[in-house]
Each structure stands twice: as C-alpha cells, then as structure tokens.
C-alpha cells in the first residue's frame, strides 16, 4: 500500500478542525453549566440527610457513575423522545446537540454532586460551630464560611472534571454531531489521510487540555490563598511542621554510594 505520510496535511487540517472548536466548547460549557446546577441540587439532600430524596440522589449518582457515558448518550437520544411521547410532548425534531448537552450535563452532575459533597464534608465541623458561636444563622454560616472553603477544596477535582468532559465530547460524533472529532472523520475520509487528521485532532485537544489545566491552576491558587504559608517569620508555627518525606526524594538522596549526607528537614 502506497501511503505517503505528509506532515503538511497536519498543518493544513488544524485550521479546518478549529472551525468546529466552538461546537466542542459549547458542549463543554453547556454540560458543565447544567452539571453544576444539577450537581448542587443532587448534593443537597445527601448533605442535609433528607430521608427519601437522599436515596433518590444516591441512585442517580450511582447510575450515572456506573454506566458508560456512551450508553447514556444512546439511552437519552433514543429513550427521551419515547418517554416524552407518552405525555404527548414531541421532541423528535430537536437538534441532536441538545440531547448531547443534556446527557453530558446529567453525567457531569453526578460527579459534581460527589465533589461538592466531599468538599463540604472536608470543611472542619468546628468552622460551622465557630460561625454559630458568633451569632451567624445556618444560611450565613454556609454561604460565608463553609462555601468559600469548600470551593477552594473542590477546584482541583472540578478542573479534572472539565478536562474529562472536554475529552468526552469526542463521543458526540456517534450521534452525528459535527464537533471536532466528527469533522476529523469527515476530513479523513475526504482526503484519505486519516493519520494526519487524527494527529492534528490530538494536538488540538492536547493544547486545549493544557490551557484549561493552567487556567484552573490559577483559579486554585487564588481560591486557596488563605492556606498559603508565607515564608519568613510570620507563620513560623506552621512552617515548623514536619514535611512529608517520600520514597522518591529518599531514593534520590540515599542512593547507595551517594556520599552526600542526607538532609533531613525536621
């Protein structure tokens, strides 16, 4: 088989693929927006231990985390019109994009609810008690004390969710949405240069992922700046805490034959 790999195709395809970037980003933004909303609603019954709703939200989370997103996509795409037909709502004409955003949104919602739950539970119980002791109401204590701290804790997990979502948008092509992966397949079959197309596609995804990661890191730094320890005299009490020493550092320092005296921070 004569198949000339031509790097020029990669360069050529990148702008063409970027023309569908807005759809990919739209799916990510829509799904994350919807997911935040759903996740918050789903997390509340479990945080406040509401009897029946708690179990409903547990099943919801278990289902969306326990089944592949691809299956969910097909399930909603084929199932939702049929179910809504039973109550005489016809949505079979709705563009596929809405189904994709809805499914991804519900899927992200399950993960977000777990993230929120974990983050809120990670905030020390004493914080709430302290807030009560100076006369805050339950609502005030939540919005002023618990939430800002919980958001700081949740951001790294949330960042992973956003990047995972970005990568999952590549599944939307299975329903015929013309986002980046769908476009890449079209370009590939038109030009018969599949490898170049997919390399271009992978490069674009890589750049977006890294960009998102950097942005989230900035947000994380900003939101958890109350935890940062300044060097110097100000925080000597905390600075004296023993650093966690790890295998990697140990083996580097203590390599057999390494004459250097290992440095211990105490």
């Amino acid at each position: 088989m004569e198949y000339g790999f031509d790097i020029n195709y990669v360069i050529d395809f990148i702008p063409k693929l970027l023309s569908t970037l807005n759809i990919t980003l739209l799916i990510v933004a829509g799904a994350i927006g919807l997911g935040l909303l759903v996740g918050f609603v789903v997390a509340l019954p479990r945080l406040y231990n509401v009897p029946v709703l708690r179990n409903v939200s547990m099943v919801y989370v278990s289902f969306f985390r326990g089944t592949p997103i691809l299956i969910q996509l097909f399930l909603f795409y084929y199932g939702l019109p049929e179910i809504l037909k039973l109550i005489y709502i016809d949505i079979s004409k709705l563009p596929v994009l809405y189904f994709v955003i809805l499914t991804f949104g519900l899927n992200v919602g399950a993960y977000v609810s777990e993230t929120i739950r974990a983050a809120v539970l990670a905030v020390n119980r004493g914080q709430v008690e302290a807030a009560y002791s100076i006369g805050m109401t339950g609502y005030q204590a939540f919005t002023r004390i618990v939430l800002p701290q919980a958001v700081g804790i949740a951001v790294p997990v949330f960042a992973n969710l956003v990047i995972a979502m970005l990568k999952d948008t590549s599944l939307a092509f299975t329903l015929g949405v013309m986002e980046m992966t769908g476009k890449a397949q079209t370009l590939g079959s038109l030009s018969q240069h599949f490898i170049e197309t997919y390399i271009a596609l992978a490069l674009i995804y890589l750049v977006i992922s890294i960009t998102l990661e950097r942005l989230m890191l900035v947000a994380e730094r900003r939101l958890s700046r109350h935890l940062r320890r300044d060097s110097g005299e100000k925080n000597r009490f905390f600075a004296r805490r023993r650093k966690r020493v790890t295998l990697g550092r140990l083996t580097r320092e203590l390599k057999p034959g390494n004459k250097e005296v290992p440095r211990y921070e105490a």
Partner: protein
Amino acid sequence: MKLDPSFIWTAFVQLWSAVPTTLLITLVSVLVGFVIGTITALSRIYRIPVLSQLSGAYVTFIRGTPMLTHLLLIYFGLPMIVDGLSAQLDLGWNSAKIPMIGFAYISFSITAGAYLSEVIRSGLLAVERGQMEAAWSIGMTTPQALRRIVFPQALAASLPNLSNSVIGMLHASTLAFTVSVVDLNAKAQIVASTNWKFFEAYIAAALIFWGLTIFIERITGFIERRINVYSKGGVA
C-alpha cells in the same frame, strides 16, 4: 412505537454473549497498562535520564487527548507501520492479519498505561521513606525492598484509585465498537437495530454495565478490608 418492557429482558439475555468480550478488553488493557504504568512511574520517580522525560511526555499526551483519538490513531497508524516494516524486512506479514480486537487491546493498553502510571506514582509516593530505610538497614537491596516492602504498601494505598481506573476502562471499552469489535455496546446496537427497539436494548446494556460496576466496587471493598487487616490501629 411503544415502550416494550418485556423486550428489556430479551435484550438482556442476548447481550450476555458480549459480556466476555467487554471483560476481556478491560482485563487485557488494565493488566498491560499496569506493566506500562509501573515502568513509567518508576522511571519518573527515579528520574532515569531519557526514560523519565519520555514517560512524562507519554503521560501528558495520553491524558490530554481523548481515548477515541488514540484508538483511531492506532487503527489507522499501526497498519502503516506494520506494512512498512514487513515490506522492508520481507516478513511476509501484513496488517490485515491483525484481528480487529487487537487494535482495541493495543490502544486501550496504551491509554490505561498513562492513567495507571499516575495512580501507581501517587501510590509509591505515599509510602514513607522510613520504610525504604528500614529495608536497607536490614540488608535488602533496592529491588528487594521495592518488591517486598514498598510495592505491597503502595498497592494498598492506591487500591481505590486502581478500582476507579478499572471501572473507567470498563466504561471506556464501549469505544471498541468504532473499530467493529462486537462488545456490549456494539451488541446492544445490533440487537436494537434488528428489532427496532433502541431504548429497551440500551436500558439492558446500561443495567449490565451498572451491575458490573457495582460488582467491581464490592470486590474492591472486600480486598480493601483484607489488605488493611494489619493496621487496625491501637497499640499492638
């Protein structure tokens, strides 16, 4: 078109035949991925000159791109390499002899390797240095200490992450249908389109996946209790 609950059961029975394929893909990709992950994680921890940079690039690239692109790159790229090699070396072998499921195995293993690399790395870093020192002090060599002391503890520490990765790979194996492997998802599509009952077929597929996921979670929970038997807390 009416909803037909009884067909869910029919589809369920028909879908069972595809469960072994799905499980096999998951198993192979996790096992091979574990080997790749261990090598890359160790080379990054020990900062082996060229290998660690390669591993870093590999992990970044794989984790930064969708799994579907890996599968498609392997699917279209591997035959080119294989054919090129066999033409040059006159092996009399060609890419048409690679079974479809082989592409899924290779690509998913590469993907799983990158994700497991991070899991293993965090597990190894969670083991305290004193453990290594203690092993050396009683005369173990580094490989011995790693094998007997560090790995078991690292494994225990990373068990929850490992189980998440296994579940992730189980779910990701649904992508195999794009290279015409008849896994659970592809079977559901076949059952759905031959009977024109899409919703019911996918409900059955979702139920099977849900069951498998819960099963994996339970097993992990069981192993976790067993592994942590040595640290019950308390004095003795």
